[in-house]
């Protein structure tokens, strides 16, 4: 089984022009900011929106096939369980539509509910289920028809933090059991990295980067991806190891690349000083503290200046340096900590 997609959808102000490819048993995670067209992409794949281009599933072009005739399972963001049916009949719904007898369909539904650990909730109405349980019923309902393509729209976003971790783990396990292609949409980096065999970054309707999680983590190609994985990303023009990122700022790297480049360094590679540091570091820029955010045991400092960047420092350093919004500081990064690669 495989999925080959090259489609275009115009919807309101959005022009979606997206390509993706997945092999059997693979999970493709589509990430991107709000309004990038992630849900539109899923809806087009499901046949709920007309699309130009082609959607090829297992060699069949299903672009013009209506939603009800595609072998697609869709887990909606807020589950969309039928409120008038029990959990069992929700899961049995797809089988009933495919002409299975009520008894048959219920037997299969019960098996799926048992698989997602909800055997004892089979008779419950959706209103009586918790968010995590509803999510599992929605997953069982989509999987019960054994779709060749499984689509999940923000599967974990409706859940609170505690349920989320457990549900994420279970979801990864159930996804691994499904032998078709999975496409998951999320804006959460943790969810994306936990589920993805392959990541597709969508921004303003276009694929800006695609690859394995590792490839994207090492070489982000957009500000959104850089923020997602928590690194500093700059663009500039390189000549013999010196990258001009602005008229008044250069970055020096150990990497030798020429031309238009991306520059990446981690916030914990950034050191902050009250006075301009002397000596080894070759990358030194002045800046003004714009914001301080406590993140775990570290403080993320956002600097404005010729080079806009984030730095991770200890709470002790915040006190020692007297960091506060508006305070002027110097930031330094060793050349060996800076990665430069062609655009």
């Amino acid at each position: 089984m495989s999925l080959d997609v090259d489609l275009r959808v115009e919807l309101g102000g959005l022009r979606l022009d997206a390509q993706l490819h997945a092999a059997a048993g693979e999970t493709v995670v589509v990430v991107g900011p709000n309004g990038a067209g992630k849900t539109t992409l899923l809806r087009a794949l499901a046949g709920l929106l007309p699309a130009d281009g082609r959607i090829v599933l297992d060699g069949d072009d299903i672009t013009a096939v209506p939603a009800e005739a595609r072998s697609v399972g869709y887990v909606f963001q807020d589950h969309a369980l039928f409120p008038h049916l029990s959990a069992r009949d929700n899961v049995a719904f797809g089988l009933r539509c495919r002409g299975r007898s009520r008894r048959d369909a219920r037997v299969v539904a019960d098996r799926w509910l048992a698989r997602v650990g909800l055997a004892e909730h089979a008779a419950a109405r959706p209103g009586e289920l918790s968010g995590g349980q509803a999510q599992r019923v929605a997953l069982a309902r989509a999987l019960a028809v054994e779709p060749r393509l499984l689509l999940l729209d923000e599967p974990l976003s409706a859940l609170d933090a505690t349920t989320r971790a457990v549900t994420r783990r279970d979801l990864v396990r159930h996804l691994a059991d499904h032998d078709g292609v999975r496409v998951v949409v999320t804006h959460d980096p943790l969810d994306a990295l936990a589920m993805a065999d392959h990541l597709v970054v969508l921004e303003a309707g276009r694929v800006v980067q695609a690859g394995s999680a590792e490839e994207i983590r090492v070489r982000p190609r957009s500000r959104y991806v850089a923020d997602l994985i928590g690194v500093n990303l700059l663009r500039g023009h390189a000549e013999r190891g010196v990258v001009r990122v602005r008229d008044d700022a250069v970055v020096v790297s150990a990497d030798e690349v020429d031309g238009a480049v991306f520059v990446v360094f981690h916030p914990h590679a950034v050191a902050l000083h009250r006075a301009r540091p002397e000596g080894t570091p070759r990358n030194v820029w002045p800046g003004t503290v714009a914001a301080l955010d406590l993140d775990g045991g570290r403080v993320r400092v956002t600097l404005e200046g010729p080079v806009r960047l984030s730095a991770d420092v200890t709470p002790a350093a915040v006190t020692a340096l007297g960091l506060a919004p508006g305070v002027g500081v110097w930031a330094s990064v060793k050349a060996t900590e800076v990665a430069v690669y062609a655009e």
Partner: protein
Amino acid sequence: MAVPLAALGALLLALPVLGLLWRAPWSAAWDVLGDDAVRTALRLSLVASLGATALAAVVGLPLAWVLARHEFPGRRAVRALALVPLVLPPVVGGVALLLAFGRRGLLGQWLDQWFGITLPFTLAGAVVAEAFVALPFLVLTAEAAFRNLDTRYEEAARTLGAGPAALVWRVVVPLTWPSLAAGLTLAWARALGEFGATITFAGSAPGRTTTVPLQVYILLESGRLEGAIVLSVLLLIVSVGVLVALRDRWLFTR
């Protein structure tokens, strides 16, 4: 000032009902209901009102669906049209129906010529007249229900393989059923009480088109007050029954 006027208003509504109950010849009720003409009228009323409700459902529910879910030029005009019978004097409605479906009417002449169907002064005519006045109640209620139905349920059903028929019977109708039932009940109650359009379009032929409201009028005109009151109380009981059945939706919003 408000309280006395409000009391007067309540009195205006309550007194006629009280009068009806006060003058009701309870002991004569069985005699009246045993009368052949009355029994025939009751049967005709039941058949005509249920037929009208069915006709209203067959054309009104699709109309409500289209109004709720489709955007097309003239949608507002069509919705306004669906409200016309609500504000039109029923007699005028009857005249209008004659001009449309009468033997020389806009459509009626073709119905007569091609299919040999004549509606005026038949039971079928009574059904059409009652459906005409009852339609707005069903269309308005159902349109609101369809509009409030989250499209995600239909989308979920489609991804699970539901075709148009499964969508209607497994998703849309079950999810909107309480409102649809309320609309059907209101439409039926309106059809049952219909007088003006029916007598104008279908006439009052005893045994053929004389429904209960028409029978009440006949009894009153011929001086048989007791019979008129008994049938009136019967219609009152049905109306109150509808009110009670629908008290939680549509009629009383807290």
